[in-house]
């Protein structure tokens, strides 16, 4: 029973940590640390969700979940179950494995869907996108709407639309291209992947979607940081403002374009210089790694 309590406490702690991480703004000044924290919370939550029903089912063994599972395996092989392990308990262990299987299959399905969409996108790009001397190393799509994105992969592609070329000046464009290359180099698509998969697995949980949005914003901030290292803040902030304004200009009065609030936050962050919160970051890292270590230890023991 003690082990089930451990897992339950871990789930509660994950939820609390996620709430704190989502609400705090120091994360914007240390996006990389914050991303690692989110990953640790996600891992701890997944393992604890599997572990809780398993530990309840294995309470009779009075051993850490890992060893208890092994013991159950040997007992099942010999066809002799100890007293206190009935159908309900076996069912609970099954539920634990089921949760693990659901998490695994949604991740695999997510990867499969993503790879297919990327291949299709890549094929179309190679047929209709053109190279342009003003943006070396990037592909240009002849469309008047403003878009700039990275198609991730082993051979990543940075793409901008003709609308972006006319929207931004030379320095702003260079900053945006560096931002996109940062996405490609640091494989931010892989960072986001487990959170996208989790959203697929649990679409009805508001705070799972919330966590995904937070991490997506942090990934953008991380790429912004890479771009500001090379090009200073002003052009990047200018580019973000122009994107926001391009949305407003063609919006019916009152309605905001999607993602406007996030754009504002990113611009503000660039304009107000602030020191990296080392102490807070280190504390958060310590808390979240402990959080992840607890369920791992219970499974390995």
């Amino acid at each position, binding site marked *: 029973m003690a082990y089930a309590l451990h897992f339950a406490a871990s789930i509660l702690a994950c939820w609390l940590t996620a709430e704190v991480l989502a609400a705090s703004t120091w994360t914007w000044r240390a996006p990389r640390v914050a991303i690692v924290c989110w990953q640790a919370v996600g891992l701890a939550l997944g393992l604890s969700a599997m572990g809780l029903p398993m530990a309840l089912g294995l309470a009779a063994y009075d051993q850490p979940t890992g060893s208890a599972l092994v013991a159950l395996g040997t007992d099942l092989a010999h066809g002799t179950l100890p007293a206190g392990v009935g159908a309900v308990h076996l069912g609970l262990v099954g539920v634990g494995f089921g949760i693990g299987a659901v998490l695994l299959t949604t991740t695999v399905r997510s990867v499969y*869907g*993503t790879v297919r*969409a*990327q291949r299709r*996108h890549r*094929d*179309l*790009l*190679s*047929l*209709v*996108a053109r190279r342009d001397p003003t943006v070396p190393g990037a592909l240009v*799509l*002849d*469309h*008047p*709407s*403003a*878009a*700039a*994105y*990275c*198609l*991730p992969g082993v051979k990543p592609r940075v*793409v901008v*639309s003709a*609308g972006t070329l*006319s*929207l931004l000046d030379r320095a702003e464009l260079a900053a*945006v291209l560096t931002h*996109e290359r940062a*996405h*490609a180099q640091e494989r931010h*698509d892989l960072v*986001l*992947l487990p959170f*996208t998969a989790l*959203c*697929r697995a649990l679409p009805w949980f508001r705070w799972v979607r919330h966590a995904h949005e937070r991490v997506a914003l942090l*990934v*953008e901030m991380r*790429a912004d940081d890479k771009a500001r290292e090379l090009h200073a803040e002003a052009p990047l902030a200018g*580019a973000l403002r*122009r*994107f*926001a304004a*391009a*949305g*407003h*200009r*063609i*919006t*019916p009065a009152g*309605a905001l*374009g*999607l*993602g*406007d609030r996030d*754009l504002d936050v*990113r611009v503000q962050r660039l304009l107000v210089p602030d020191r990296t919160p080392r102490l807070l970051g280190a504390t958060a890292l310590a808390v979240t790694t402990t959080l992840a270590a607890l369920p791992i230890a219970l499974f390995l023991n």
Partner: protein
Amino acid sequence: MTRLGDLERAVMDVLWDMVPGTSDGVTVREVADALDGRELAYTTVMTVLDRLAGKGMVQRQREGRAWRYRAAGSREAHIAQLMLDALDLGGSRDAALVRFARSVTGTEAEVLRAALSAEAGLTDRVEDPQAGQPPLADEATDR
């Protein structure tokens, strides 16, 4: 870009420029003739068209002993499709792309979707190259 990708693009350009939307399409020989400057073997052009058909970019119809090929969608429709992906309006739940910023309005989305659905309904008609273009070009350039 690979040589094969380069060829595929050249062949698609021929299909788009020679027979914009007409229903009967062109033969391998006609494509090879249009690509005269490249001195491609007939079989090479056939292989490329075959690959494009496999990817769903090209439709073909048997006419007598030869196949007639035509583009499955216009160049504008493909660009509209890519832009829907780029602006995260494609309705996909997968994170296939990582974007710089999203500032898309409902109008823009409607225009892009309209470009695609018009394409789906009128594949057999002659395409007006401007039909799929949203009227935003001036707004973006006059800044």
